[in-house]
């Protein structure tokens, strides 16, 4: 049987259509994906992300262990800061993409739910002596409040001035009477917050956010909208856009690789890659027509297969079909491409990511 988050009962009561994802019974949608997607773009949406894994690294060597595990440079982040990073294996393949929080004397690494067991084993076998690795996933719930009205909504429930938290920073505060890690992060391309709380208070926090959000027509949002939002925002999905067979340069995450920081797992392999000419070219595609290009669909230049779609969806913000693809590095920028969508060729134009950028000042 699939695992349940502390908010399972809330999803059922709200009439969510449930789906099994990474071993959890999760809401796919409550109303329609379009409605939830547009709520986040225009107002505010609430997500249960309690399936995500959280791993605490503590001890005198914790920082050195984090530095060994990730390709980014956590030394650039002070206490209360967060950083997006990939963990690589010795061959430079991506074990997982994570967010690392630096707390006063420990770190919290947020991992993909589907990778939780693998990541834990990986971390435990690669940390330095003097680092404790603790899986706190089951006792940690995560609620994301995303959209232009998200900050004001949380501020109504808290004394914290959430608007003063810089992007990729967090602080601990009471929200609706519950102690939360309030983090200015997200996976939607909108401004917003992610609230980490103890699992037992998650339902009360959910209820408080829903009640306070009714004035701004807050929508609970499922994994369906989460995927369409993240793809418009050009954000990667592990297992689809990348996996152990893909190095960070080949999926457009070279900006997270800090080779100059010193040694880390995979550094040797990554140093041998020319960042300007990695094994694959990761690109956005604007797809003609309304049909959706899906993971694995072939991308052609003329009659030659030059790559494959990694993710695709219908963009409700742009009202068009969009995709990301992993292509041969020899494909010229701007080359006319087509995607084989179930036997029909759809023209595709290479574009830079993201597809959607939130308006300035919003």
């Amino acid at each position, binding site marked *: 049987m699939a695992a349940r988050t502390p908010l399972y009962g809330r999803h059922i009561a709200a009439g969510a*259509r449930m789906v099994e994802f990474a071993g959890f019974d999760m809401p*796919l*949608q409550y109303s*329609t*994906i*379009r409605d939830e997607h547009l709520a986040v773009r225009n107002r505010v949406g609430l997500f249960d992300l309690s399936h995500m894994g959280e791993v605490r690294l503590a001890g005198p060597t914790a920082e050195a262990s984090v530095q060994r595990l990730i390709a980014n440079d956590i030394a650039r982040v002070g206490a209360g800061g967060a950083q997006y990073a990939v963990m690589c294996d010795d061959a430079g393949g991506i074990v997982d993409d994570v967010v690392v929080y630096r707390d006063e004397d420990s770190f919290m690494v947020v991992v993909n739910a589907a990778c939780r067991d693998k990541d834990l084993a990986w971390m435990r076998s690669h940390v330095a002596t003097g680092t404790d690795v603790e899986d706190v996933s089951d006792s940690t719930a995560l609620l994301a409040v995303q959209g232009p009205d998200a900050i004001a909504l949380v501020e109504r429930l808290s004394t914290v001035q959430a608007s003063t938290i810089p992007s990729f920073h967090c602080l601990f505060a009471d929200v609706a009477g519950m102690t939360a890690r309030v983090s200015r992060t997200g996976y939607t391309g909108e401004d917003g917050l992610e609230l980490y709380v103890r699992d037992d208070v998650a339902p009360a926090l959910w209820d408080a956010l829903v009640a306070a959000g009714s004035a701004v027509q807050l929508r609970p949002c499922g994994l*369906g909208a989460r995927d*369409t939002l993240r793809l418009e925002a050009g954000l990667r999905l592990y297992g689809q856009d990348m996996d152990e067979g893909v190095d960070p340069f080949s999926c457009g995450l070279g900006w997270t690789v800090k080779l100059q920081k010193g040694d880390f797992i995979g550094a040797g392999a990554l140093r041998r890659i020319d960042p300007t000419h990695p094994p694959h070219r990761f690109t956005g595609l604007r797809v003609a*027509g*309304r*049909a*959706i290009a*899906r993971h694995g669909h072939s991308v052609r230049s003329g009659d030659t297969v030059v790559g494959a779609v990694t993710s695709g*969806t*219908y963009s409700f913000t742009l009202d068009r079909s969009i995709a990301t693809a992993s292509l041969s590095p020899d494909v010229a920028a701007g080359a006319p491409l087509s995607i084989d969508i*179930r036997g029909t060729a759809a023209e595709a134009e290479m574009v830079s990511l993201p597809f959607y950028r939130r308006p300035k000042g919003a």
Partner: protein
Amino acid sequence: MPDLSAYRFTASHEWVRLDGGDARIGITDFAQAQLGDVIFVELPEVGAALDAGAKFGSIESVKAASDLYAPVGGTVAEVNAALADKPELVNSDPYGDGWMIRVEGAGPASPELLDEAAYAKVTGV
């Protein structure tokens, strides 16, 4: 729920409403709910000849794509042009404004087509 007593259904979740030799065709409420947000409906040209059971188009949602099969044969007399811009009509009104094609010269309903009660057994709803 609309009155579906005049509708017949396929096990592949299309419906047909026969009116003499005229047949209107769409997909069921169960099918639209399974698909979720419909974003694209590919329909045949007016004038196309359809055989009963043959593929007449396809439907795509954010979640999945699937083919559409004709419950009855005949000649396509009309396609629902509104679906080109508003494919979500299939979600909001599958038995009404979300209809897909109208066929002329349709034969009588095949005994393989299901009535409402028999279709309900297929979906278990």
